[in-house]
Every structure is written in structure tokens, then in C-alpha cells.
């Protein structure tokens, strides 16, 4: 029997469930390794070589090299794990979260100062809110940052 997954109709959101966790196991464990300073140094010195030490898929490795967090999440990454890459790069959580919307850092920060993103139109796929697939990427630069 199929598992109950009532969260597949959320726009712009991937729920990190057991299936995603299985897909992303080595990607996330690679991220955990960056909590050690000497691993961070080795990764920074040669990202490709460091990634090749892990049993990650080529797609996962490329998504990390591209710092494409949406792609990382689609491939099983979890944001709390991926945050270790951001920490290695000296990025804040706000910079990381913002990078997934297509907005510039300033646009995203202004949205948060203005009270954040509204839930209106963003509860179900098929509505017309700013997080819906038909409105990606967001922001004036349209994701070219």
C-alpha cells in the first residue's frame, strides 16, 4: 500500500521524508563532514576531488559545485545539512534561503523586513501566489544572480 503523503500538493516546497532521505544519504553525509575544519579546508582546496571521495551521484556533485540548493534539495538534500556548505562559503541562513527564490539578497531581505512571504496563493499547487512554479524565478533579476 502506498504511504500517506499529504504534502505533495505544496508549491515551492519539498518535504524531507524517508524517501528523500534515502536518495540524499551521501549528499547529506558529505555536508556533515564540513563541520570539521580540516575537511572544510580540503574541500575548499579542491572541491571536485573532495566530492569524488563520496558515493554521491554525478548530478548531486554538480549541484553542489553549482551551489544550486533547489537542485540539491530535489536530489535528496536537506536544508540543515546543506547549510554546512553555506557555512563553509561564509553565507548566512538568510543568504542561503534567499538564493532558492531567485531574488537578490537585498530583495529577499526586504521581503522579510516587510513581514515575509504571504501564505495567500501559496498553500496549494495551482493557485497564483509568488511561490508557484509559473512565477519562478522571483525577483527583478529573474534568477541571474
Amino acid at each position, binding site marked *: 500500500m502506498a504511504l500517506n503523503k499529504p*504534502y505533495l500538493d505544496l508549491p515551492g516546497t519539498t518535504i524531507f521524508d524517508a524517501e528523500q532521505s534515502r536518495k540524499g*544519504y551521501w549528499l547529506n553525509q558529505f555536508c*556533515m563532514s564540513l*563541520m570539521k575544519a580540516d575537511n572544510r579546508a580540503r574541500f575548499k582546496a579542491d572541491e571536485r576531488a573532495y566530492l569524488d571521495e563520496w558515493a554521491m551521484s554525478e548530478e548531486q556533485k554538480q549541484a553542489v559545485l553549482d551551489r544550486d540548493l*533547489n537542485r540539491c534539495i530535489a536530489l535528496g538534500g536537506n536544508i540543515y545539512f546543506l547549510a554546512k556548505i553555506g557555512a563553509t562559503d561564509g553565507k548566512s*541562513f*538568510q543568504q542561503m534561503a534567499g538564493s532558492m527564490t531567485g531574488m537578490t539578497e537585498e530583495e529577499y531581505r526586504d521581503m522579510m523586513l516587510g513581514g*515575509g512571504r504571504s501564505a495567500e496563493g501559496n498553500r496549494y499547487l495551482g493557485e497564483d501566489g509568488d511561490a508557484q512554479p509559473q512565477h519562478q524565478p522571483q525577483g527583478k533579476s529573474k534568477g541571474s544572480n
Partner: protein
Amino acid sequence: MARITASVYTSHVPAIGAALDLGKAQEPYWQPLFAGYDYGKEWIKEQKPDVIFLVYNDHATAFSLDFIPTFAIGTGAEYQPADEGWGPRPVPKVMGHPQLAAHIAQSVIQDDFDLTIVNKMDVDHGLTVPLSLMFGQPEAWPCAVIPFAVNVVQYPVPSGRRCFQLGQAIRRAVESFDGDLNVQIWGTGGMSHQLQGPRAGLINKEWDNAFLDRLIADPAGLAEVPHIDYVREAGSEGIELVMWLIARGAMSDVAGGPAPEVKQRFYHVPASNTAVGHLILENKQ
């Protein structure tokens, strides 16, 4: 006997810890947030708890994908602040209360809640930011802390109902301990926030404030709210709010006592990506 005298609820946003550690608390961005905790800081000086039972979640720090306990109680003597990739926070180490923690573990497991027991782990911002908000920047934390970690990272997380029932079992456990201890229980995390995907930055003030209303006046009803409502209305990381129901379940009114007194209620947007909520509920003696 030991008794739970009050519960405290607060968000545990990492940027709050960073702002405090880097001396930015008086900057215009942060000042209104910290002001919301001025009352709590004075209140807790008078309360002088002996032990805080601190419900929080680990953020891929002590628990990677190596093991993912749903409920983990810390029974160790002490815990170091974790290096989460930016270096450890410059805060005191956390002293546990092994006797009370072991007592609670045994009692709660015998009451059908299958806890994982942890004697050695580092504690991340989920635990240390609430301590900083309530105690400021002391040389040493003024009381013992029992860390209680809940999995809210990998779905499915425990239901609100399960959390609320667990809080009731924790209260029974504390009250069966033979030492005269003033115990507080804290529920942390939330409120609305989403840190991932094109929907990142979601905030829902109406939903958050309705959550606070119901947490105070109708916790049993609130405990029936399904996960999907949290995620849809309060963002994928807003699910952390189930942890507040553990603390709320441990209050005496749930076991037939009088309603608690609301000593503080505070709400602020934003702290980085997150809506910040804070409540203090005191049991009437």
C-alpha cells in the same frame, strides 16, 4: 517532591545567537526582538529554577543521518556547545541533571514513551539560543538543563497529539521525583518559517497568533491539528511548533488543575527568515 512551576516558549533562530555573540543586540534590526525578552530575564531571576527541561531540536549537528531518534533525553553530566560550521558559540557549557534525567527516562518509558537515552552529545543553537534569550550572557548558566531533542528534521515528525501526551507523562515523572526541585519546562522552535525552495520566507502572522491563543486556552484541541496544516500554513520548518505542545502538556491544568497565568506574550517579525514567538505560562500554586 519536584514540581513543574512554569513553562517558557520561544523561537530559537540561530541568527539571534549570532547577533548576541557579535554584540549587535542594540542595533535597530535586533533591538525590538531582544526587548521582548526583558520581562522574562527579570522574571526568571525571581523564579530561580533548579532545572530546566529544555525541549528543542538538533539541526543536523549531534544527529546526522547516522541515527535519527524521534525523542532523545540527555542524561549526561554536561554538554558542550557545538561547532555548527561557524565555530562553537561563545557560551558556557551546559550542566545536566543526571539524577532527575535518569528518573524521567525510566518513568516516561514505563509510561509507554520509548525514548532514546543520550549520555554524550554536543548541543546546538536550538538549545543554547533560548538560554541566551532568557539569561543573557552569564559566565555560567545559573541552573541545570536536561536536553530533550525531538526529530523535526526528517518527516514524519511526532504528531502534536503524541507531543502533548508526552508532556503529560513528563509532568507525572517530575512529580514522582523525591528531591525538592523547582523545574521549568521549555518548548522551543518556530514560529512560522520556511528555509527552503521557492516558498522560502513564508510567514503567517494570523496563524501564529491563533496558535498562541489556542496554546494558552485550548491546548488539547490544538494538539489535534495535523502536520500538513503546520506545513501549509506556517512553512516547512514551522513544524517545529509541535515541540511547544510537549511543554504545554506538562502544565497542571492539563491534569485537572487551575488554568496557568500568562506572564508574557510576545510576537515579532522577522528574525532572519523567521517569525519569533515567546510565551511564559506559570502554574498557580
